[in-house]
């Protein structure tokens, strides 16, 4: 059976008027910006874009509006320039926060949204990646399968899409469960 881990109740839609969103050209830039801003201690969250700027496979970064200048300056140091910086005026979508784990003997599979990763607990080798529909999924699978958890490339480093982001969540959980 699956074990579900995460929040089960729908969250109320809320608008934080002191927060804004950074919009980027693509998900890769979002992931890079998230890594650097979190590492520097900013209180930011990766969220779904509001409908008026949604085009497809999108993520935005929610941030404290008051810190816009310092955040954009930090991002410019790594050559990332948001395409838009706008205040939040409608509820944002929360990324998936429900991870499911399933055991198959010595194998552990973790699912995050539409992405699944399976690892041999004994050897800590990634044996399969499944699910997803964005074009980096087969690429990520090719790069990660048959690699040890400790030296496999991570989706956040070589992926581009929301499927890659979901796979990163599943990967992080597998690493946690396998104590790598």
């Amino acid at each position, binding site marked *: 059976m699956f074990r579900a881990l995460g929040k*089960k109740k729908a969250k109320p839609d809320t608008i934080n008027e002191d927060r804004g969103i950074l919009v980027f050209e693509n998900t890769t830039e979002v992931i890079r910006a998230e890594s650097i801003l979190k590492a520097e201690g900013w209180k930011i969250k990766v969220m779904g874009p509001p409908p008026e700027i949604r085009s497809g*496979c999108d993520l935005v970064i929610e941030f404290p509006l008051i810190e816009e200048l310092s955040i954009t300056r930090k991002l410019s140091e790594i050559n990332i320039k948001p395409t838009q910086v706008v205040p939040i005026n409608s509820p944002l*979508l929360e990324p998936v926060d429900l991870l*499911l784990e399933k055991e198959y003997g010595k194998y552990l599979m973790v699912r995050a949204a539409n992405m*699944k990763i399976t690892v041999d607990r004994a050897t800590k080798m990634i044996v399969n990646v499944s*699910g997803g*529909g964005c074009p980096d999924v*087969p690429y990520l699978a090719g790069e990660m399968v048959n690699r040890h958890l400790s030296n496999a490339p991570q989706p956040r480093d070589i992926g*581009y899409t929301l499927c890659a982001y979901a796979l990163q969540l599943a990967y992080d959980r597998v690493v946690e469960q396998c104590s790598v």
Partner: protein
Amino acid sequence: MFGIVGTVPEDEFPLISDAVVLEDDQIIFGNKRVAVNRGTPAMIAAAIKTLEHMDRPNPFCFLVGDIGSGEGSKRLYKYLADHLPDSSFKTLAFHYFQPDVGLFKKVVAAINKMPTRPTLVADAGFMYVAKMAGDAPFFDLFTPDAGELAYLADEKAPHPFYTRGFILHEENLIPDLIKRAYRHHNAASYLLVKGVEDFIASKKGIIETVDNPCEEILEPIGGTGDTLTGIVSALIASGMDIESASVKAARVNRLAGLNAKPTPATQVYDIIKQIPGALIEIL
């Protein structure tokens, strides 16, 4: 004519519109070769195995290299928008693709200009963008897994990544999610939901379920959904109605999986090799 549209996980792979050949674990387009592991190449390989059994020609494929940047997908969206109106496909199956609502709408407009509307199958990224764009009912068949069905059922989610937890949770029964997807007009005319038990449904409700043979270990194996989409699309392209094709494809995919004697580490080509035997037994 049967067409397949999708992406190849190689950045440098050019845009190709051509007939294909399967040779062992590689698909050949002119002088280009692609390994069959998962994704659209696995779907094409499963379709070719099925078409061979049905004594039908190999599919015509529209493919482009894309490892997630979306650049290849954009080129192929534009190519399809320009060329589909002058083509005559009886069945078109859409697969791994970068979702882009604006460009997708142009492809839908191009399909509407075709002399005869083809039967339209969508899975993976193309199914995601069809729902995102509010055009799911334009398609004849979607082939989601349970997680993707939850996305179709969540009228607020623009991508599976945003499916709300109370819908995604396993306590939600598949039939309830199917009803919810149809209630909000986020499903194709037919759904083939792959899982421990496969469901074939329409807006009228569950048509049939397939749970035999049962091989639970298929779930972690990347590409088993791709093979199902390939088999069902090829059966439809061979003249079978969507309901029958869905039931038969579910059985064939399960049997091929079982006959591969899988472990969670099995790779999908080992299952594709079992498709001809499963077709003989099931059809």
